[in-house]
């Protein structure tokens, strides 16, 4: 579905991305992992046509992703790292705006906006302004805005920053639903447990270069034998305890 070949990008003398290649199939989540400043966001910007690569190409279904009015961009949904919402526009107003920008109109726009709100659990807050939302609700609406035009490829740039476990789980459930529907997802994070839970394929990037890329089981083989086995102190994590005590219900 999405294929990036040999992407390079520099800002002045600083090389941000050096020769990154990756491919995402329909119904697959590819995790783009790396520490802060590794080049993840620059890679995502090139994948969605925001930033033209100095070298290399990005295609979706064989068609090149370009800048501005490129029609292929209609097949991409971007969830930026920042919560990019118009705070004084209602939730449905935000969705209608982003839907219209992707050429969705009339009844289709109406249906898609309501479906997107339903998916992220905000149907009852359609007319509320994001300024009245919690951080988790804003993150979910941020995702809904990228889904309203029903893209084939969804690029998520650290979509769970600053949300509570309930919202994070809800977001994970949404993403798994989308994968089941055959969408191709690129999930950028530096939380390993998120990648472990969600991603079918992992690309690890550092200093702008890919240091490893494979299915997560295969990546474990990169570890020296003595490091592959860990002593399990507790079978459950603190997060499991937290969710057990506070429940999995969304609190917004």
């Amino acid at each position: 579905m999405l294929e990036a070949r040999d992407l390079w990008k520099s800002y002045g003398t600083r090389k941000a991305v050096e020769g990154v290649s990756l491919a995402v199939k329909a119904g697959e989540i590819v995790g783009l992992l790396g520490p802060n400043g590794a080049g993840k966001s620059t890679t995502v910007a090139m994948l969605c046509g925001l930033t033209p690569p100095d070298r290399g190409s990005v295609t979706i279904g064989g068609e090149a992703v370009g800048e501005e009015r490129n029609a292929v961009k209609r097949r991409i949904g971007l969830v930026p790292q920042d919560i990019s919402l118009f705070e004084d526009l209602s939730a449905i107003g935000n969705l209608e705006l982003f839907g219209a920008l992707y050429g969705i109109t009339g009844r289709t726009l109406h249906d898609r906006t309501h479906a997107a709100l339903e998916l992220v659990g905000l149907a009852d807050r359609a007319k509320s302004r994001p300024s009245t939302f919690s951080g988790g609700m804003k993150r979910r609406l941020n995702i809904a805005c990228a889904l309203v035009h029903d893209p084939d490829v969804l690029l998520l740039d650290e979509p769970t920053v600053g949300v509570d476990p309930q919202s994070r789980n809800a977001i994970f459930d949404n993403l798994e639903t989308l994968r089941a529907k055959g969408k191709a997802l690129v999930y950028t994070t530096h939380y390993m447990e998120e990648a472990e839970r969600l991603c079918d394929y992992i690309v690890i990037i550092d200093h702008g270069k890919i240091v490893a890329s494979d299915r997560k089981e295969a990546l474990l083989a990169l570890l020296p034998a003595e490091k592959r086995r860990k002593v399990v102190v507790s079978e459950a994590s603190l997060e499991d305890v937290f969710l057990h005590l506070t429940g999995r219900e969304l609190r917004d």
Partner: protein
Amino acid sequence: MSPLSALVRKDLILYFSNKRALLITLAAPILIAAFFGYVMGGPPKKPTRVPVAIVDLDRSPTSKIIVDAMKADPTFDLKEVPEPEAVALVREGRIRAAAVIPAGFGDAAPKAMFAPNAKKPEITVHFDPSQAIALQLVKGLLAEHVMKGVSRAAFSPDTGMKAITDMRADVKAAKDIAPDERRDLITLFDSIERMQAHNKPASASRPGGGTQGFSMPFETKQVEVTGKANARYNGFAHSFAGMGVQFILFMGIEVGVGLLLMRRLGLWKRLRAAPVSRTLLLGSRILSGTLIASILLVGIYAAAIAFFGVRIEGSVAGFILIGIAFAILTSTFGLLIAALGKTPEATRGLAVLATLLLVMLGGAWVPSFVFPEWLQTVTLFVPTRWAVDGLEAMTWRGLGFDAALAPVGAMLAFSALFARIAIRRFDWEE
């Protein structure tokens, strides 16, 4: 809903959803324009009477004629007070000037009128230096009333007889006068004496008798020059043009700073990720800014018309065209701010300073005709000058559609320049 209409709709909803900010945006120019308009003369009315004082130290029939004439002049709001009080009133700025008629004026003035070499009596005029223009008015009108009063006294048997007798004696005794000239002057005095004798029966009770004295050999008819017959100057028309321009430009700053904030919040990136052109993204911003500015202008002028008597005496179509051109100018000015600015905070400060300079030089605070001539020429290169002049031309000046074309052309040219610079300098990739 097309992408363009969705973007414009978004901007309008966001701007007008903040009711408190909107109220202030509308109320501030109306209140300040009301104040400035009132100070600058307010609605059409009779000319303001100039507050002046007269001090009569002479107390002669001649000085009484002058004082009475000045009291009857509708140009003056005259107070007759002692000299120290008159000077104090000038110093406090409560009157524009005070004229002091010296003792002996009634005797000396008629002699000085006929004898060029005679010592002229001196009328002192104390004036407020901050109101120096009023001094010329007071001197001019004082000259008229003194000339009338003194000539009337000179030809009056009651007041003029002694002066003629004294002057005849002076002429006879003078050694530096040629015999022919002496003879002619004596003949003139004899003629005046005969005229005084004719006037005597009518001079029973009034100072100056029945004589009229000299009078101005012309009358003036004041006609306010505006483009439309019966159009009247309204001080509010200028102040609303000026304050409207200023506060709508402030809104333009918000258009620019809003773009910088959108960048900071990642919204600009999200909009750019959509399959829409740069032209559409910036064009929608210009369009929404233009609409908002137009709506604000309509609101401000609605108040001016409803409550302050401002009228579009000239071309309504011209007024609308000037309003639209100014709204486009505001919008592109905002875009320029966004293109040149770095952070919203620093940009807002600099943009406010730039706007205040623009409106000051554009004649929004004080009319540009009070500027020195060189500054009036220089400010033709300031876009706000065209906006203010254009709005005034269509309101109280009552000019026709043709007079709107130059301001509209100038503002659109500035808009094109601003937009061109903004698009070239705009950092698309942030």
